[in-house]
Structure formats: structure tokens, C-alpha cells
């Protein structure tokens, strides 16, 4: 396994300053977070509370009927621990109204649909609360595209988007998030029994090692395999990175005018700062 150690005190300070400045410079004081009770969203809730204050952070808890009940409990425990605002919105009725009209529903379609229902509610709540939507995607899932496009990926900022899952475990412990939450098997909880590692076909320690070798150190596929990583897993991971690039870029515009969105209309994201 590669070395993932970071100075988490500094990481914490850096991310808190980032959240403060991004939220405030966009004309907001508040944020909403889709809080599943999993490590990533809990960690973002901790950081957001430190950055914006507990009265300015609202957790939206959105269980579906098949969601693991333990997730909701962990989410509520987090809310209590931090003293932040929260709402519970059960999405079973909304989702099932659609599912019952559809003949063949696969896990993937259902999972994506649930993620996008949550996105819808989160953005609506952000309007109501006059808040930005905090993203909870981490570097591992952003690189692998292991997330729903326009679903859980939809957010105003990604505070933990440059941290691998492997680093989030350590960071969460540093942030004194209860061990019960840190030690859970990572899961999108989109269907019963789903876990990240089962679905991705490898342990995060392996996945993240391969990712950092390829992404950060620019090793080639052959070089990574020669270091002793399984060829099958390496190929699987690199394919996922490439296949899901579309999720990380705006869709192509058929360019013919002098300046075109996504191509050469190159203002910064923070244009109005």
C-alpha cells in the first residue's frame, strides 16, 4: 500500500477556510448537506459546522424504505452531537410513485433515481434555507466515477474532493468522529447489502494505491502492475477512470462561434468573487 499520510491539522484548517470563503464570497452564509450517516457526509457536516457555525448548517436526512436503519440513527446522532439543524424527508412515496409505473427496475436504475430524487430535494431545500449545497464526493469516487451523475455529484462545492477514501478514515478519526461511523463498511446504501468494495471488486487500500500511482504519480498501467498490483484490478480501475470522464466535464457544445461555453469562454468559476 502507498503512503497516504497527511498533516490533518493543516488539512482541517485549509478545508474550513475553503468552505468559509467559497460560501461567503458567493453571497451565502449557510449550507445544506444530504446526510446519510456515512463517513463522508458526516465528515462534511463536521467541517461545515466549524466553518459556518451550527445555526447555518442544515442536514437533510432522506431515507428510502430499503435504507439501512442504522444509517438514519448515525445521521441523527451526528445532528445531536453537532447541534446543527435537520429535517427528515422520507423519499419512499416519491420514488415508489415512479417505480410502480415502470416494468423492469434494475438496482442501478433505482439507485440512480434515488440519488437524483435526493439531489432534487437538496436543491429545493437550499432555496428555502438560502444555502449552498455541500458536496460530499471524495477523490476515490470522483476519479472512478463511482457516483451518480447529476445525483450525489450535484453540489456547489466539493470540500473533500481531493481526499482519497483511505485518507478520509484517518481524517475522520482526527476529527473525532465516533468509531462506530468510521468503522462501517463504506456503502452508497442504494440497495440492501450494497458495499463499495464489493461493487468495485477491491479493497479501498488497493483501489486508492492504484489511483494515486496513476493519477498523482503518473505511473503507467504496466508500471503499476509491475509493482505487484493485480492486473485485473488495475485494468478495472483505469477503465473506470477513463469511461467516466464525461461525469467530470461539461458536455461538449458543437462549437462554431468565436466564444463557446466549455471551450473558450474561460472565466473562472469564482467570477463574481
Amino acid at each position, binding site marked *: 500500500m502507498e503512503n497516504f499520510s497527511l498533516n490533518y491539522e493543516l488539512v482541517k484548517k485549509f478545508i474550513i477556510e475553503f468552505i468559509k470563503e467559497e460560501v461567503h464570497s458567493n453571497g451565502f452564509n449557510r449550507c445544506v448537506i444530504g446526510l446519510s450517516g456515512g463517513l463522508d457526509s458526516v465528515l462534511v457536516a463536521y467541517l461545515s459546522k466549524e466553518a459556518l457555525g451550527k445555526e447555518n448548517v442544515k442536514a437533510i436526512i432522506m431515507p428510502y424504505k430499503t435504507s439501512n436503519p442504522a444509517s438514519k440513527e448515525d445521521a441523527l446522532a451526528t445532528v445531536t452531537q453537532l447541534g446543527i439543524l435537520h429535517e427528515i424527508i422520507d423519499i419512499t412515496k416519491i420514488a415508489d410513485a415512479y417505480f410502480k409505473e415502470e416494468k423492469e427496475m434494475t438496482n442501478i436504475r433505482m439507485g440512480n433515481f434515488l440519488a437524483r430524487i435526493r439531489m432534487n430535494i437538496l436543491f429545493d431545500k437550499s432555496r428555502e434555507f438560502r444555502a449552498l449545497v455541500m458536496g460530499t464526493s471524495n477523490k476515490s469516487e470522483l476519479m472512478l466515477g463511482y457516483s451518480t451523475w447529476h445525483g450525489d455529484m450535484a453540489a456547489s462545492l466539493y470540500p473533500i474532493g481531493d481526499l482519497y477514501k483511505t485518507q478520509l478514515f484517518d481524517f475522520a478519526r482526527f476529527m473525532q468522529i465516533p468509531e462506530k461511523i468510521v468503522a462501517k463498511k463504506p456503502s452508497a446504501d442504494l440497495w440492501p447489502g450494497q458495499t463499495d468494495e464489493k461493487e468495485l471488486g477491491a479493497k479501498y487500500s488497493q483501489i486508492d494505491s492504484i489511483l494515486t500511482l496513476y493519477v498523482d504519480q*503518473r505511473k503507467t498501467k504496466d508500471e503499476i502492475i509491475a509493482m505487484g498490483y493485480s492486473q485485473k484490478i488495475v485494468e478495472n480501475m483505469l477503465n473506470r477512470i477513463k469511461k467516466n470522464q464525461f461525469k467530470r466535464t461539461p458536455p461538449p457544445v458543437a462549437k*462554431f462561434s468565436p466564444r463557446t461555453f466549455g471551450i473558450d469562454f474561460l472565466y473562472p468559476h469564482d467570477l463574481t468573487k
Partner: protein
Amino acid sequence: MKVKIALAQINPLLGDIEKNREKHLKFIEKAIENNAQVIVFPELSITGYRLKDLTMEVALPSDSSFFNPILKQSKKIDIAFGFVERGSDSNIYNSAMYLENQSIKSVYRKIYLPTHGMFQELRFMGRGEKVATFKTRYGNFSILICRDLFHPSLLFLTYAQKTDVVLGMSSMPLRGLTEEKPAIQETVEKAIDTYTNFFSQFIVFVNRVGFEDGLGFYGGSFVGTPLGKKLAFAEILQEKLTFATIDLEEIYKKRQLFPLAREEDLNIVQNNLNKILEENYGKF
């Protein structure tokens, strides 16, 4: 001397060098069947254009064995194609090579890499420095790549080295859709008309087609001749293999009708350039 040239207006797959090599071999095969003596591919024909971080992953040294199947075919036909070159100086270049009789005759590194607006070439590649003329069985050839063609100074350097045929290998994205032709096509044709007229050269302009991240490469390949003709005009936006038979005799005719080359004086150019460089501390 007459030379039959094949213009391979292809649509390379972005980053897939194996598939692109296959496509090259297919077009080369067709060109051989049609008795062409030279085949010219567009800029970065082996790799595709908008590579960004893929640049490093598709870079190959010019003598890589990956090119052997193409090299083998150069026994039957001269071949010019574009690739990302991993230089022995550990830099990466937007290059093109010319193969003749199973050997590399010339490797040209693009000099002017556009880096503004939609273009990002200097972020990923280094610039070349040398405009060369190389002798082939079919006369003196030079290669220029895409943006190079908008710098008359480079065309002048080929002219000064007695180049008969300039291979202008391009990945020009379309822009401007208000007139009959895309504005960029109008610009290219006017430029080539002017160069071929005043420098009495042939320019083989081969532009790719296809879309990458919204950029649509327009094609419209053709050969401009010293007497102002346009040969082998390929339609826009379609993969095409077109053929032009050029007659090098035309250069001689043109240079007698309009003897600019005879008037040319490189000493005057050099003296003036030296003075300009001195006054401007070597900068443009």
C-alpha cells in the same frame, strides 16, 4: 516530373493509437492500389488532437517499433503522418514524420503551438525550432503543421530552402458559419493561394475531420499549385481519400512567368533582420 499524391482526410480516434495505426494502414493500402507515390495524413493523425493529459500517454519516440508496420509500407509509397513525439531531450513535441523506402527521411516538430482561446498546445507540448527541406525522389519537401501555415515567415523559410512541395498537415477546428464556406476555410484557402502564387510552390493541405470535445475539424483538404489551381478538393466534414497529380514543371513555368525567386536576396533579408533583432533585443 509528375507525382501522384494521396490526401488522407481521416478522423482519428482520440488517444487510440492502435486503431489509428490500423486506419493509416487501410488508407495507405488504398493509396497504393491507386498508384499514388506519396500519402499525406493530417496533424497528430496517429493520436488525435485534443489529448490534454493523454498527451504523455501516447507519446512515442520517432524510432519506436510501434511504427514498423507503417515503415514497412513505405517501401511502396512515401508516407507522411502526425504523432506525439517523445524527444530524446525528454520533451514532448507535436511532430510529423516522412517515411521513404523503409527509413525516416525527416521528423518535423511544430513550431507555433497555439495556446489561447480553445487551444492549449503549449500546456502539453514543447515547440520545435527548425524548418527543414528534405530531398525526396519527388523533389524537395518541407513539412509545416497547422498553425505554422498562418506564419508566412515559415513558408518563406521553406521557399528560401528551395522547397517544391510543402506538406501542410492540420487539425483545424471549424469556426464561422455565416457565409457560404466556414470562415476558417476561407482564411486557409486565401493564405495558400497567396503563398503558392508568390513562392511558386505546391502546398498539400491535409486537414482532419471529426469532433473532439465540441471542436469540429472541417476537412476541406486540397493541393494548391503555383499557377493558382486547387486540386483534389475534398468535401468538408467527411472522411475522404482524394488524389492529386502535380507536375513539378509548373514551378519552373511559374518562375519564368513571374520571376520573383530570381529577384529574391537573402542578404537583404538577413541584414534587415539582424538590425531588427538588435533593436528589439532578439524579441518580436
